[in-house]
């Protein structure tokens, strides 16, 4: 144990490890905040759909040799988020079908573009890194860390400042609109925030595993708590704990970061399920 702590202490001398922990914690916080809303609105898979869009946009950015692909990926993802969240409103293609179409379409086109316009010697490694987030969080530059900090603060600020509006839009959008809340505006804000979180979270767990980061903390919290506020707070704590422990376990054991973080989330979900079961039995 002492050896492990000494090793961790030595690893924390590296700036890229400290950057990874900072950004990882913030990403976990942001994704868990949005996760509660998405799960309750039955939009759990929008994270997966948007991450595939981001993958396709990343492929195009790589083919165009853009220095900073976030400047391209973020607007494209935001536009798709707005389109997806609006598809449920009087459109011919409904929510889940639209998500599926955009998701697989952009994934396939992104992979095609990366193959045709290969920009690096190790295409398989690059694709693997983007999809599974094996090493992305540990290879952030200082600019990327500051960008992630700013975007995370924006997400957290929006959620805190518009908490009541998000709450009302989450549970009953029609009632919220009928009582004078600008439901469409808050849905638009949600779409932008979701896109921001997805682009951030790709650094931590990769495009294929983002849904886990969004869904699992919320679902874990719902096993034990029943109020929106309690679920949200618990979700944040669970997500931050799993991300931190997952990253630490990954750098100690030499496992891929993204998968380890998701595995930690799965484990906590199982524990919370057991805790919820025991709590309900105790009450009855």
């Amino acid at each position: 144990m002492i050896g492990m702590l000494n090793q961790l202490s030595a690893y924390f001398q590296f700036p890229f490890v400290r950057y990874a922990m900072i950004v990882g914690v913030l990403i976990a916080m942001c994704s868990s905040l949005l996760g509660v809303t998405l799960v309750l609105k039955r939009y759990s898979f929008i994270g997966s759909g948007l991450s595939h869009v981001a993958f396709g946009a990343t492929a195009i950015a790589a083919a165009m040799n853009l220095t900073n692909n976030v400047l391209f990926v973020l607007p494209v993802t935001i536009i798709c988020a707005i389109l997806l969240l609006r598809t449920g409103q009087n459109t011919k293609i409904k929510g889940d079908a639209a998500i599926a179409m955009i998701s697989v379409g952009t994934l396939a086109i992104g992979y095609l573009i990366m193959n045709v316009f290969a920009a690096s010697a190790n295409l398989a490694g690059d694709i693997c890194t983007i999809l599974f987030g094996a090493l992305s969080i540990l290879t952030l530059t200082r600019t990327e860390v500051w960008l992630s900090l700013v975007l995370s603060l924006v997400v957290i600020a929006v959620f805190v400042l518009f908490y009541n509006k998000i709450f009302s839009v989450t549970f009953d959008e029609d009632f919220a609109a009928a009582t004078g809340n600008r439901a469409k505006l808050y849905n638009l804000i949600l779409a932008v925030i979701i896109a921001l979180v997805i682009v951030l979270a790709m650094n931590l767990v990769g495009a294929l595993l983002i849904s886990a980061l969004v869904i699992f903390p919320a679902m874990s919290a719902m096993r034990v708590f029943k109020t929106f506020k309690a679920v949200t707070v618990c979700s944040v704590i669970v997500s931050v704990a799993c991300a931190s422990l997952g990253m630490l376990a990954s750098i100690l054991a030499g496992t891929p970061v993204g998968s380890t973080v998701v595995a930690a989330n799965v484990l906590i979900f199982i524990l919370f399920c057991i805790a919820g079961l025991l709590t309900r039995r105790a009450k009855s």
Partner: protein
Amino acid sequence: MIKKYTYLLAPLLLVLFLAGCSADAAATGEDAVGAGNAGAPAAAENTGSTGNETTAIAGENPGNAGSETTSAANVDIDLTELSTTMMQARFHHILSNAEDYLGQTIRVRGQYHNMPFGDEYLHFVMIIPGDECCRMGFEFMRAGDYVYPDDFPAQYGALEIKGVLTRGFDGTFGNFLYLAVDDVFIIG
């Protein structure tokens, strides 16, 4: 409203605390564009080549005959003591900020690869994770009368080397990074 700002203050303080902890280490230049992974056998940010500017590589009885590993003395960066994930991250940082690491002695253990180049061979030590997805490695060169294949491991054999990170130039590939090796140990 005050409660809302209090809730906002907490994550803001957390961010400031974490940002305050991220003082830069000696190796600076994190803003450099990342070189990403180096696929085999492209071991550095530019493809390595012996050309005419470098001496051929060979290995007699490589490194420390009779010892179990290369010497740990005078090593600036020891990649052999890191976990696979940390090794890959450190390796990526070295490639991305090569100017800060030139002249430093690096010790690395990995898999031996070679690639024919004209009448000679290019030699690489590759770090390959379990999923073999994100391969990366260094080209290495050693001065002296070392002959391939007699003085080198079998292709894909285990190898440990210690050398100085050096920048070379080749007419075909331009600038490239390599390890000027002074200590080689063939593990398998």
